[in-house]
């Protein structure tokens, strides 16, 4: 599954351009991380990629087909989107929330079948939250809610997963859990495109990084090439130092950054 962004631009108004001239291609399965400051246009970018927002210019191709020519349910059966914040009016059960992921596969007048329930339960199991499935979505923690949304998107059975700051409201443990899960999903054949404002996450988990700044991609490619002290200083506007250490047990190399 490949996604191609060609010379894309978007603005809520003519005088307020969020991003422009964006080009990006994801051909391989794996994780692509869009890294950038708060408000640089990452979320808007993801929303355009799943068709929630319509581009003002340029195009997005999913396996060579323009998103403009696709019906909403067509897009949703290929591209899954996990929003960053989420508030729900009604106290649905977790299983019912995950079941909503089946919506793109059902016609307007039909309800989920036994098969759909099975798919939803499998998704819940895959994320490892079976113990939550009868709980109320409004009464679980932020981390659990994030996992429920991942399960819902898996029930959607997409080929591309868009995640908006998947770790933003989570504690250390839950951050690690979700990043491990993303890694697992990417290895199972899904393309994951996630956003982050935290360079360390991008450094440790992503296959590919696109560095976003002022509505443009400053650089994209392998983490080692893209995330350097110079580029981070440009993007974040502060001094940055990157350190490299080796895990004595495995000999694996890790890079992480600190504000200088």
């Amino acid at each position: 599954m490949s996604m191609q962004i060609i010379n894309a631009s978007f603005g809520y108004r003519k005088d307020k351009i969020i991003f422009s001239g964006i080009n990006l291609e994801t051909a391989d399965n794996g994780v692509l991380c869009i890294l950038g400051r708060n408000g640089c246009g990452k979320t808007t970018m993801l929303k355009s990629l799943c068709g929630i927002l319509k581009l003002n210019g340029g195009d997005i191709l999913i396996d060579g087909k323009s998103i403009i020519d696709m019906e909403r349910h067509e897009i949703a059966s290929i591209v899954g989107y996990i929003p960053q914040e989420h508030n729900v009016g009604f106290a649905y059960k977790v299983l019912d929330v995950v079941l909503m992921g089946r919506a793109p596969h059902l016609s307007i007048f039909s309800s989920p079948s036994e098969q759909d329930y099975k798919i939803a339960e499998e998704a819940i199991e895959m994320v490892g939250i079976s113990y939550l499935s009868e709980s109320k979505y409004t009464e679980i923690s932020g981390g659990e809610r994030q996992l429920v949304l991942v399960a819902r998107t898996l029930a959607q059975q997409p080929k591309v997963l868009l995640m908006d700051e998947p770790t933003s409201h989570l504690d250390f443990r839950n951050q690690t859990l979700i990043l491990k899960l993303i890694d697992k999903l990417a290895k199972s054949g899904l393309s994951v495109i996630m956003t982050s404002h935290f360079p360390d996450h991008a450094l440790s988990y992503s296959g590919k990084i696109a560095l976003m700044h002022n509505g443009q991609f400053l650089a994209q490619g392998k983490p080692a090439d893209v995330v350097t002290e110079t580029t981070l200083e440009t993007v974040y506007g502060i001094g940055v130092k990157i350190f490299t250490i080796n895990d004595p047990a495995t000999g694996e190399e890790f890079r992480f950054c600190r504000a200088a």
Partner: protein
Amino acid sequence: MAISAEAGQKGRPRNKRWVLPVLILVPVVVIIISLFIGKYQANPIDIFNIILTKILPFYDAEVPSNMRTAILQVRLPRILLAMLVGMSLAIGGASFQGLFRNPLVSSQILGVSSGASFGAAIAIVFSMSSLVIQLSAFVFGLAAVGLALLINRFYKTSPTLTLVLAGVVIGSLFSSMVSLITYTADPNIKLPAIVFWLMGSLASSANQDLMFALPPMIAGITVLLLIRWRLNVLSMGEEDAKALGINTDRLRIIVVICATMITSAAVSVSGVIGWIGLVIPHFGRMLVGPDHKILLPTCLSMGGTYLLLMDNIARTATTAEIPIGIITGIIGAPIFAYLLTRGSRWS
């Protein structure tokens, strides 16, 4: 997987197996009981005979014809109309609450009842027949929501919120025009008729009302029942629903049109009856949870039964009939307040 093996059938509403039989049984029982209640003193055995004669083709008992007329032409249509109006207002309210993601809205939010009230008031002022009054109420109810939708079209951002605001604007516009009409209406003949209509009543209901209200109600209710699972997805919010592949603009319009149609039809035959669209969905959610797949059928059953019970009180409590809109307010408000206090335990 013990649960799934137990439920086993398509689209399982797990461990809610008692719901469907109860939802059907309770209204049927209440309808039959209601046939025995009324000012016209009829012998219960005669009423049994009338019912059985109607149901069983081979059964034919001797019953005085004026009694047969009273039961079949007066009491039965009123009972059925009360059921239908209650069902419509309840499912309309539940659908709007799902659409607007807010358990505090009801089907009056978009100005339906204000528009319908204006339509009825103006027809009463011009001394129209009851059919024209109903028709005018229906048309203006639809027109009010149509105007709200039209205003909404000019705004691109946050369509749901602007729709509510547009509804409030249109609603208050029509309310003011109703006030203007009542202010200028002839205080001896027209004014009481308008005020009585606004209070809501099923007193004058006849088979003709049933025939008038039935088609739009059945059509709207059927469509809402068909799309009820998607209301769950829509209630997650605009962006979420879009990301899940829902054509939100189309679905929202379908819900608004259906809920408006059934509410207008209800208001046009019964006047303004408050509280049903707000209280019943709440009560339903406490009993069966927020899943619209079960909630909407539950609201149909509970709304119909509730309004029928209220109407039984309205027509028998005192010698002069009390407008049902007053009963649902006086009884509905305390019940609602009581439910709210124990809501946390229920849900």
